Each structure stands twice: as C-alpha cells, then as structure tokens.
C-alpha cells in the first residue's frame, strides 16, 4: 500500500470536501426543517454505530470461538445464530457466514460491486476497503495486495477470496496466535484486529492498515 497518490494526475478524492459537506448539511437541515426526519433520530443512529457496533464485537466472537470449541463449531455451521448468542445482529449482518483460517487455508473478504461489509460485527468499513484499488485488485492479484498489507502467504496456502455480491456477509475467523495459550477471552479479543477479520492481516499482528 502507498499513502500517496500518482505523480502525474490529480488525486480524484480531493474533490473540494467543502462542497459535499455544505450540501450534506443543507440536505439534513432541509429534511429536519420539514419535519421529515428528526435530529434525535440522526443522533441515535450516529451513537449506535459509534458505540454499539464495531470490530470489538467481531473480536469477541473470535475470542469466544478460540476458547470454546463447541461455540466455534456452531459459529462455522450457522454464523448468524452463533453471533446472535453474543447479542450481535442487524442490518448488513442478517445472514452471516464465518470462514476459518487455518495453516492451510487463508480467507479474505471484498465486495467488488459496492462495499458490502458485516456492520454488526465489524462496524462500518474503512476507507481502503471501499477504494477502487482494493475492490478491483484483490480478486485479480490477491497475494500482491496482501503483501502490500504486510501479509506474506506461503505459496502452498490455499487462498480464498470471497466477493460479497449478494445479501450474505462474511467474517474471517483468524488463526489463534501462537503463544496465546495463557490468555483469557478478553485478552485474546484484544489481539483481534479489524484487518484480521477481513483477512488482510493475522490476529496478533501489529501489521495491517492504520486505523
């Protein structure tokens, strides 16, 4: 990954933010003034996605699966129900499939057509996940993309790229880091990054895209 754009050519995301911001604020004002939406409703939704939803939820699911073999079995056979056991569910996570990384198999998630993402367990998607480059490239040169994230896979590992093109959402169950036997569930959850649950990093790695 690079944190700069091409030399020759403008950065196409540097469209004046102020115009969009002004229009977004005006749109909100217009709908509130007309009584069609309310600020408390907007505030409630903002707070929900700010506080109740995020990768901390997915991390708890992963940690539970690491410590509870029966839960892990349920999680892999019926993701939606097992995730609901921990109280997570809702929009963009109605039908969940959990795919397991092992020493032989590595999974990574994308949505090439828009940017579908499992909101209840991971929150809203990071910018890189929504980028043209990620959407275009990870199905066509996934090892190169993973390598740019600092993740090098052995050539023998079966790499599986999941394109979320329907109403199913995916969560990667990363491998439990070596040497984590002494850790409790909460400590284990702290090792599970958002990027590990998308599949562009390993659990316990410092690597991955900056949050």
């Amino acid at each position, binding site marked *: 990954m690079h944190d700069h754009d091409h030399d020759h050519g403008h950065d196409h995301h540097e469209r004046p933010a102020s115009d969009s911001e002004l229009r977004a604020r005006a749109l909100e004002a*217009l709908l509130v003034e007309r009584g069609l939406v*309310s600020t408390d409703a907007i505030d409630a939704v903002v707070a929900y996605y700010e506080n109740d939803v995020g990768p901390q939820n997915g991390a708890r699911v992963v940690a539970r699966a690491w410590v509870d073999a029966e839960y892990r079995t349920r999680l892999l056979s019926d993701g*939606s129900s097992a995730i609901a056991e921990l109280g997570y569910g809702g929009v963009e996570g109605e039908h969940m499939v959990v795919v397991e990384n092992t020493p032989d198999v590595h999974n990574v998630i994308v949505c090439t057509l828009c940017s579908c993402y499992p909101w209840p367990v991971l929150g809203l998607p990071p910018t890189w996940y929504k980028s043209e480059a990620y959407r275009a490239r990870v199905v066509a040169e996934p090892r190169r993309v993973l390598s740019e994230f600092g993740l090098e896979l052995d050539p023998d590992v079966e790499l599986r790229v999941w394109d979320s093109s329907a109403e199913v959402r995916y969560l990667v169950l990363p491998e439990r880091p070596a040497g984590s036997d002494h850790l409790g569930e909460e400590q284990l959850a702290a090792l599970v990054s958002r990027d590990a649950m998308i599949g562009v990093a390993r659990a316990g790695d410092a690597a991955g895209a900056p949050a």
Partner: protein
Amino acid sequence: MDGAHDMGGMDGFGPVVADGAVFHGDWERRLFALTRVARTAEITAGHSRAVIESMPPVEYLEASYYERWMWGLEERLVRAGTVTHADVDAAVARGADGRAATGMDAELAGRALAAQQAGGPLPTAAEPAFRPGQRVRVRRMRPEGHTRCPRYIRGATGVIERVHGDDLLADAAARGERDPVEAVYAVRFRSDDLFGPRDEPPYRVLVDLWESYLEEPD
C-alpha cells in the same frame, strides 16, 4: 447495468492507499445516519444501490464513498417527490446547516434505532437447482438494469461451494418487483478459470450468485 461500479479485475486504480478511517469528517457520519433515518421515515423511492450505480461514470469514480451515498440519497428523495434538486440548491445557497436545525421525534428515533438491529438470515433454499460440488457456468449477459452478477465471472465455470438460502433476485428487487425468490449460492472459481495463468500461485474466488445467473455447463 455494467457500469463503472463493477470493478472486479479492473486495472488503473493504483495501489491500495493505507487509509483506515471509517469517516472523513463529521458530515460523513451524519450523512450516513441521515440516509438510514430517511429509510425508516420512508421518504425515498428507488433501490439504493441501483440509484448509486446510475451516477455518470466520471462522477461515480470521482466521488468518495459517502459522496456517492449523498448523491443517491438526494436522487431517491427527488424520485419520491420529497424534495427537488432546486430545493437542495436553495438550501445550500442560504447556508442551511443541519447542525443548527433541531427537530425532535422520539418515536422516529426509536424506530430508526430498532431498524438497525432488525433482520435475520435467509430462509433455507426450498428448491435449489444446483447442489454443492456441482459444476455451473455463469451466464453471459448484459443486463439493462441493476444486477449483482459481476462482469469478471461472466461465462466462467465454477463449482457450487454452498447453498446460502432463498432470496429475492436483486435485479427484480431493483425494479420494485417481489419475485422471483430463488436460491443464492457461493460459487467457487479457480483463478485460472477467471483470469488465465498469472504470476501469482493459483487461488480461489468465491462469489455469491443468484440461481438466475447460473446455467449448466455444456
């Protein structure tokens, strides 16, 4: 429609830029929430993904993710007759700002919040035409409207990985129709069967596809 949004396998977008931010600025956060609330308030018309895909290609590619959402929200408000583009232009011109506006509606707030937590898994597929392990081919097509069958797999042969369940065909949903409801599968493709031999070791791509997109290979 086969538009600029259908990016799988495309080239020319450069490296993945290391930006892990979920929002850039507070206005994106509020625009996201406004879009969710507008849905609950039922003041929009049209299918959100289909409308965003109807953006002219340059505008689509130029826009950031939440700029696309904003374009789509405004368009769907206009289609519903809730506002006109001129209304929004006028609101911009007079400097209307949602941060200064206050309107309370506890009932709407409750419903909007509940809507975020609603929904459940797909029902088990009633009559799937294909079974796990079966070889299938993706139909060649050029759909006029919205579809969830990406271009990079058209005509390719793969194997049914799993049957997810039954769901309303996205193409029909975008037209406002209620059927067909049909099986959705994860279909597994070998990278060679999509993109030919590459300088990377072979890998698998798994794509979720409605039954209508699939046919039996010759």
